[in-house]
C-alpha cells in the first residue's frame, strides 16, 4: 500500500474538488486521485452557467427553482434531493464568488443571471460562456491553497472492498507505470459521465464512466442508466458543445425552410423549452427531411456582434475553429448529441452508496436531482452542492473510524489480471470495438428508442463484449501507457452499455430522455414513476426498481 487517507476522492472535476475542499475543511486528511490533471477535467467544458435562485435578475426563489427542476425531470427526480439542491444553491454560489470565481456581473455589480431552458426565471449565473472553466480553476486554486494532495495521472481500476466496506483503490500509474494501492477510510467517486459511449458526444475522451463501472463491479447498484441526455446544440460532425446560453441570449433554431420549427413543438417556451423536447423536435425535423445535411441551424445573427463577442466569445471561437463559421454572419449547423448522464451510482442525499464508506457525487452519481431530463445549469450546481455534501459526510465517517485494511490477495490478484492482459499478443485492438460501440449506441439508443433497435443493440453489445475478451494492448511499456488505460476504459463502457439497455428496454413508457415514439409514446406514472436500479450479478446486469420520493409536487402533464 502506497499511503492511506481519511478521504480519497476519485476524479477531480468540480464535484471531486468541491468534495475534497469540504472534507479538508472538516479536518480530514484528503487526497484527490485522477487520471488527468484536475484542471483538465471535463467540468471545465461546461459553458452556459450554474442555476441558483439568487434573484438578481428577477423575483426568484428556491421553490420556483425546485418546481422547474421537478417538472424538467419529468417527475422522475427525487423531490427531497431537489429541494436540498435548490435551497443550498444560492449560498454555495456566493461561496464560489468569495473564493474568487469571475462571474459576469449585472449593471449594479451583482452576479449576472440569464434565462435558460425550462426555467421560469432568469436563474443561470454565468461567466460569459466559460462558466465551467472559471469554476474548475477557482476550485483548483482553493485546492492549492489548502495544499490538498493530488495523485495526478493515476487511473483508478479497482475499488478495494474488505469487511463489507470500501477501503481504497488500486490504480495504474500512467506516468511511471505499475499498479499502486491507495488505502482510504472513505472513497468518493466523482469521475463524471460516460458520454464516450456515443459517437456524437459533447464529452471529453476522459468521460468513460469509470466511477460508475467501479461501483457496479463491487456490487453497488446504478440508477436510471437509460437516461442519457441529448443536448440540442452540438456541432456537426464532432459533437462539440454549443452552449444553451446562445438560446438564453435569444438565438433561434431554424429548419431548412427557414422556420423557427419549435412553434410546432413548444409554442410557449420556443427555443427555451427543455433539452429533451428540443432534441426530439430537431430529430423529427431532420428525420422528416427538413434538416440540412443532418442538422438544423442555430441562428445568432440578430443578437448583434457586440453581444456575441461579449457574452458568447467562446462559442464564436468554437464555431470558427470547428465549423469554419463566424456566427456573427452565418447560422451554426447543430444537431442533438449525447451530453449528460442523468443516471449513475445510486446515492442518498449525502452521497452515500449502498456500500459502506463509498460515496459518489456529480455526474457519476444519481441522487437523483435530474430524473429523466436535466435542466441546463443544474449540473454544475449539483457538482458543487452535492460534492460539498458528499465531502462532509465522508469526512464525518472517516473521522469516527480508524482502520484501513487491504487484504494481501487483492493486490496480487490485480497484478495477475493485468499481466494476463498485457501478455496477450494475438487478438483485436480496442479501437474497432470502441468505434462500433459508439456508432451503434448512437443509432440504436439515441434520441428515440425503438424496441427492435434496443434488442438489436443488446445483441451487438453482447457480441462486442465477447470480442473484448480477446483485446490486445499493443503498448507493453511502463511509461505513459494510455494504450492500456484506454483498453480498460472500453471494458467499463461495455458494461455500462449493458446496464443502459436492460433498463431502457424495461421502461415501457416515454419519459424525459427516454422516448419510445412507436410503442409507448406516453408517460405512464402508474407503472413507471419509479427509478430503474441495475446491479451486476454474475456477469450480467439485473434490473430492479425503486420508488421516486415525492414531497410537494404531484405529476402533471408536461408542456412547454
Amino acid at each position, binding site marked *: 500500500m502506497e499511503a492511506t487517507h481519511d478521504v480519497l476522492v476519485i476524479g477531480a472535476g468540480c464535484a471531486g474538488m468541491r468534495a475534497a475542499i469540504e472534507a479538508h475543511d472538516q479536518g480530514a486528511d484528503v487526497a484527490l486521485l485522477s487520471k*488527468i*490533471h484536475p*484542471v*483538465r*477535467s*471535463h467540468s*471545465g*467544458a461546461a459553458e452556459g452557467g450554474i442555476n441558483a435562485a*439568487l434573484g438578481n435578475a428577477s423575483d426568484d426563489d428556491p421553490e420556483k427553482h425546485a418546481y422547474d427542476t421537478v417538472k424538467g425531470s419529468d417527475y422522475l427526480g427525487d423531490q427531497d434531493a431537489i429541494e436540498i439542491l435548490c435551497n443550498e444553491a444560492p*449560498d454555495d454560489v*456566493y461561496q464560489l*464568488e468569495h*473564493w*474568487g470565481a*469571475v462571474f*459576469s*456581473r449585472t449593471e*449594479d*455589480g*451583482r*452576479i*449576472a443571471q440569464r434565462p435558460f431552458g425550462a426555467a421560469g426565471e432568469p436563474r443561470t449565473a454565468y461567466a460569459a460562456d466559460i462558466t465551467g*472553466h472559471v469554476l474548475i480553476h477557482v476550485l483548483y486554486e*482553493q485546492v*492549492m*491553497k489548502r495544499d490538498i494532495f493530488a495523485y495526478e495521472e493515476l487511473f483508478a481500476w479497482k475499488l478495494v472492498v474488505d469487511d463489507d466496506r470500501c477501503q481504497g483503490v488500486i490504480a495504474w500509474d500512467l*506516468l511511471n507505470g505499475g499498479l499502486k494501492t491507495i488505502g482510504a477510510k472513505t472513497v468518493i467517486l466523482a469521475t463524471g459521465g460516460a458520454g464516450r459511449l456515443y*459517437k456524437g458526444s459533447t464529452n*471529453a*475522451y*476522459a468521460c468513460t464512466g469509470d466511477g460508475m463501472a467501479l461501483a457496479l463491479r463491487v456490487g453497488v447498484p446504478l440508477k436510471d442508466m437509460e437516461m442519457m441526455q441529448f443536448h440540442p446544440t452540438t456541432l456537426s*460532425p*464532432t459533437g*462539440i*458543445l454549443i452552449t444553451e446560453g446562445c438560446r438564453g441570449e435569444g438565438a433561434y433554431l431554424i429548419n431548412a425552410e427557414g422556420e423557427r420549427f419549435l412553434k410546432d413543438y413548444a409554442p410557449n417556451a420556443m427555443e427555451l423549452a427543455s433539452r429533451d423536447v428540443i432534441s426530439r423536435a430537431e430529430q423529427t425535423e431532420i428525420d422528416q427531411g427538413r434538416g440540412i445535411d443532418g442538422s438544423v441551424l442555430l441562428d445568432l*445573427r440578430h443578437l*448583434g*456582434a*457586440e453581444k456575441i*463577442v461579449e457574452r458568447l466569445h*467562446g462559442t464564436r*471561437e*468554437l464555431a470558427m*475553429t*470547428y465549423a469554419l463559421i463566424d456566427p*456573427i*454572419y452565418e447560422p451554426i449547423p447543430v444537431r442533438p448529441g449525447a451530453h449528460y448522464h442523468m443516471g449513475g451510482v445510486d446515492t442518498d442525499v449525502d452521497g452515500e452508496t449502498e456500500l459502506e464508506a463509498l460515496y459518489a457525487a456529480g455526474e457519476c452519481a444519481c441522487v437523483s436531482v435530474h430524473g429523466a431530463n436535466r435542466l441546463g445549469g443544474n449540473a454544475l450546481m449539483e457538482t458543487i452542492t452535492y460534492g460539498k455534501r458528499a465531502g462532509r459526510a465522508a469526512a464525518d465517517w472517516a473521522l469516527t473510524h480508524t482502520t484501513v485494511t487491504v487484504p494481501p490477495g487483492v493486490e496480487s490478484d490485480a497484478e495477475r489480471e493485468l499481466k494476463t492482459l498485457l501478455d496477450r499478443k494475438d487478438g483485436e*485492438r480496442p*479501437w474497432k470495438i470502441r*468505434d*462500433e460501440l459508439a*456508432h*451503434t449506441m448512437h*443509432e440504436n439508443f439515441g434520441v428515440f428508442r425503438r424496441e427492435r433497435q434496443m434488442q438489436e443493440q443488446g445483441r451487438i453489445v453482447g457480441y462486442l463484449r465477447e470480442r473484448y475478451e480477446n483485446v490486445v494492448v*499493443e503498448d507493453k*511499456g511502463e*511509461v*505513459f*501507457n494510455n*494504450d492500456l488505460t484506454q483498453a480498460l476504459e472500453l471494458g467499463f463502457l461495455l458494461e455500462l452499455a449493458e446496464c443502459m439497455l436492460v433498463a431502457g428496454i424495461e421502461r415501457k413508457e416515454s419519459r424525459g430522455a427516454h422516448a419510445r415514439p412507436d410503442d409507448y409514446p406516453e408517460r405512464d406514472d402508474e407503472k413507471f414513476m419509479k427509478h430503474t436500479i441495475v446491479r451486476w450479478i454474475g456477469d450480467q446486469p439485473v434490473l430492479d426498481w425503486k420508488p421516486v420520493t415525492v414531497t410537494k409536487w404531484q405529476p402533471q402533464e408536461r408542456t412547454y
Partner: protein
Amino acid sequence: MTEAAIHTWEGETMQVALKIWRVTGDGERALETYEVEAPEWACLLDVLDIIKDRQDGSLAYRKSCRMMICGSCGMRMDGRAVLACKERMKPIVEAGHVPVISAMGNLPIVKDLVVSMDPFWSKIRAVKPWLDPGYDEADERERVRSQQQMNVIAKESLCIMCGCCVSECNSMESDPEFLGPAALAKGMRFVGDPRDQADVERLNDLNGEHGIWDCTRCYMCNERCPKGVDPRDAIAKLGAESIKQGIDHDMGAKHANWFVTSAKTTGWLRETDLVPKTQGILGALKETKFALKLARRGKVPPPGPIHVAAEVDEARALYDLVKQQGVDGAAGIVQGERALQRLEFEHTVHQDEPEGEQ
C-alpha cells in the same frame, strides 16, 4: 455496423502525413513518418488518434476535451507550440506539407509528445494562485463588484494552463528558473482582481529575481497562446502596477521609469542617460568600454545641452491626462486592450453592412 456505415459518419477523407519525434522513456529519439486516411475536418489531434489506433498503439500524447478548454494537448507543430485539437489539417495537406510534431519546449520530455508539467505547476504555485480577500469569514452574503472592475482580468481569466507560452518562452530557455508567462499571467489575474487584498505583497514577490523584469519582451507567448490570454501584456500590466505602487527597485523598473521621465521632460528618449538611470553610476561605469565603442561608430548622440522636442507640451499633456484619468498602472493597458478590441470589431461589422446582414 459496417465499416462503410462508419465511413459515412466521417464524410470526405484525405491522406495526411506527419513526422513525429518519438522519444522513449530512456530518452532515445527518432523522427518517424506516418501516413493515414483522415476525415477532411480532422484536426492534428484526430490524426494522432488515427495513428495510435491503427498504426502504433505506443504513441504517447495527452488529450481530453478536444475543444480547446482542458489544455491537455499542447505540443509543437513545425517547432511552434499549438493545441493539437485546434489545428485543422486540411490546409496543411492541401499545401502538400508534412509537418513535424514534437513535444513542447522548456519542459522535460516523459515520452513522445508528453512532457512533465511539474516545473510548470511549481511556478504556478509560486505566485500564491488563490484569492486573498482580506478576510476569513465574509461579512456580506454577496460581494458587489462592477463588470468594469472585473474586466481588468478578463483576458488573464481565460488561461487554460496548457503550457504553450512556457514552451516558447525565450527567457526561460536561458533561465529555467524564470517564473515565465503562465505563472506571471496568473499573478496578474490576482493583482488585477478588484477583490484581492494582497496586491502589494504579490507585486513585491513578482519583482524579485526570476520575476517580471526578466521577461525579454520577445512576445512569443502572446504569439503562441491559443486562448488570447496575451501573457506578455499581463507582464506589462504587472510592471506598470509595480511602478504605480512605488515598487521600482529592479533595474527593469528603473529603465521603464526613465522612459517616462525622459518623455515627460523632453518629449524624447534620452538614451545616453538611460544606462546610468537604470544601472546607477557605478553600474554605468562598467559599461564605459561598450559606450566608447558605440561612440566610435556614431551611435551615441553628442553630450551637451539637453535637446527638448518642439512639441514637448503634447507629451506632458498626455502624461497629465493619464494621471488625471487614473489610468496609470495596469488600467491604462486594459483600457487600450478594450479600445483595440472595439476597433477591430467595429471594423468587421462595418465591412458587413452593405450585405444588410444585421
